[in-house]
């Protein structure tokens, strides 16, 4: 697909901005802190309603304003002109206790975010992405979730339901924990377990007795099972998809790495979850295994007051030549690994959706040596590209032919934009 127009209102340092684009490579340049990255951020936000830099929408609002809006128009590879927009309005502006997100697809308002995912596709490669290899498991889970969600809405809905169920289960764990410590002093629970009032007791007639009639006692496992059944079903869907995709990303990224670096270094991904689960099992089988594990960890979880296992705790191990890249790979190798993962994301999205995602490169061109740069641009020669760099001269430093530097020898149309203090001037 191809981005044809970007419209921003009160987004970061842009009060109002309207830009239109052709196919080709688009370069935003200018001094630091002028708003180059903000442009890529606004484009990327339209894929998933989330910035690649922050989870807090408040930060995206222009100082002194109370809402932002980012809107993109694009031409799909099927030849359709489409439009998506995301806005966020602060609670105060609405005279309400809750902020509001407004989304629309082709000018029709959409209330559920899951219906906005997978309409507009972009892949971003930014300095922050090094955290996929270097940082904690959260960033790697997000990498997986974002990729799979863009291809599969049922996956995104399963994530939403899973996190809701998880909050309910965790609240119940805390309630049981507090009740447990309260009961230990009064020993009320043990009385009940030893045949206290329940279903078997005599019927009581008066309304007052209702208050004293106790529900039959349940074990912790039984009480949790009410949530665990659904939690296991959603977890199984998530796990099955993640295991499937990890296999494919691993293969694809491995090929990309070899191509980028001309080496025979081997990249492999391994999903680290509860064990005993593989992508060869059915969702039903995974759900049964996961349910049993949840129930088994009930006592521990009550003690912790939170759920100790599941897709929200899992990790994705990135290995280079069978050693964890996080500790064994050099800075340069880590950068190549992340780039390979991003290329795998781009290729998978292209293959599964039939659309060529837009590529957003935030300040990475100058970090790559000429060979990697050329190979990257060779891979994305059919994709529209947006990139940022500090200044035109610096980007072309030591290059007799600047176009060669930025196109990697591909025949591409180039467009330059000078960015200064929230204004963007085509050059």
């Amino acid at each position: 697909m191809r981005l044809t127009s970007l419209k921003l209102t009160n987004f970061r340092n842009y009060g109002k901005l309207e830009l239109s684009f052709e196919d080709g490579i688009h370069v935003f340049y200018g001094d630091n802190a002028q708003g180059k990255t903000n442009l890529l951020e606004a484009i990327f936000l339209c894929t998933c309603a989330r910035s690649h830099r922050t989870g807090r929408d408040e930060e995206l609002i222009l100082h002194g304003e109370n809402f932002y809006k980012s809107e993109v128009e694009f031409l799909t590879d099927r030849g359709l002109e489409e439009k998506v927009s995301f806005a966020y309005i602060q609670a105060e502006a609405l005279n309400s206790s809750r902020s509001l997100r407004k989304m629309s697809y082709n000018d029709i308002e959409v209330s559920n975010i899951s219906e906005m995912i997978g309409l507009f596709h972009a892949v971003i490669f930014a300095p922050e992405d090094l955290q996929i290899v270097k940082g904690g498991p959260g960033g790697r889970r997000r990498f997986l979730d974002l990729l799979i969600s863009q291809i599969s809405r049922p996956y995104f809905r399963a994530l939403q339901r899973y996190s809701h169920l998880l909050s309910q289960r965790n609240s119940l764990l805390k309630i049981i924990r507090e009740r447990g410590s309260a009961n230990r002093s009064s020993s009320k629970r043990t009385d009940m377990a030893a045949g206290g009032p329940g279903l078997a007791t005599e019927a009581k007639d008066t309304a007052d007795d209702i208050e004293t009639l106790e529900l039959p006692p349940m074990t912790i496992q039984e009480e949790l099972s009410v949530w665990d059944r659904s939690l296991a079903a959603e977890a199984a869907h998530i796990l099955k998809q993640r295991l499937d995709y990890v296999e494919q990303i691993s293969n694809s990224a491995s090929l990309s790495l070899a191509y980028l670096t001309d080496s025979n270094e081997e990249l492999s991904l391994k999903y680290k979850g509860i064990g005993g689960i593989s992508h060869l099992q059915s969702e039903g089988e995974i759900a049964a295994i996961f349910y049993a594990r949840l129930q088994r960890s009930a006592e521990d979880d009550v003690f912790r007051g939170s759920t100790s296992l599941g897709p929200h705790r899992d990790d994705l191990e990135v290995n280079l030549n069978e050693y964890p890249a996080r500790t064994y790979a050099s800075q340069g190798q880590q950068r190549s690994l992340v780039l390979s993962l991003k290329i795998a994301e781009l290729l998978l999205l292209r293959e599964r959706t039939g659309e060529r995602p837009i590529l957003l490169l935030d300040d990475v061109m100058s970090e790559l040596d000429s060979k990697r740069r050329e190979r990257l641009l060779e891979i994305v020669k059919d994709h529209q590209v947006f990139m940022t760099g500090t200044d035109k001269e610096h980007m072309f430093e030591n290059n007799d032919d600047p176009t060669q530097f930025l196109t990697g020898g591909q025949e591409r149309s180039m467009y330059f934009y000078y960015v200064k203090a929230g204004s963007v001037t085509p050059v």
Partner: protein
Amino acid sequence: MAMRFSPAITRLIAELNKLPGIGAKTAQRLAFHILAQDNEQALALADAIRDAKQDVTLCSECCNLTEDDPCDICRSQNRDRSVVCVVENPRDVSVMERVQNFDGLYHVLHGAISPMEDIGPEDIKLRELLQRLQQHQEIEEIILAMNPSIEGEATALYIARLLHKTGIKTTQLSHGIPMGADLEYADAETLSRALKNRQEL
């Protein structure tokens, strides 16, 4: 933006603002509308609220809202007393009644289990349901008609667990595409659920 009104008006706006779905602006508009009405009209609203609050109680059988106890459904001679349909809210009873092809009795829980909001099984009318089952041995089937939400489903599972030991037949409403509506208007959740529960023809 904050406007100042006399204490009595402020109080009226504040009370209206507490109602569900009424924001600050709507509360103001309603308050001024009420004040613009003639005395009789405005007080009729106040009386209606007072009377309803005084006269409406919970049915001692099914916990539905009623002015007579037991309620007319529970008193009716024409209902099948062996089937009880369990719903979350009094509104759900009206909805079921509109259908006119359910002739059993109801039980209103007044909520669903939600640990996040600190609503446990003892906070909804479950004890009343169990007591009713003890007192009325003629009840043979419980139909669970909770809302198809995460909390509704958990509540249904909880009741199923409770009733498992009693041997009473427990069923649940099936979920699917609304009739009369075009497929394109079904939300994604409903559609994927209906697809999962598809039936062979």
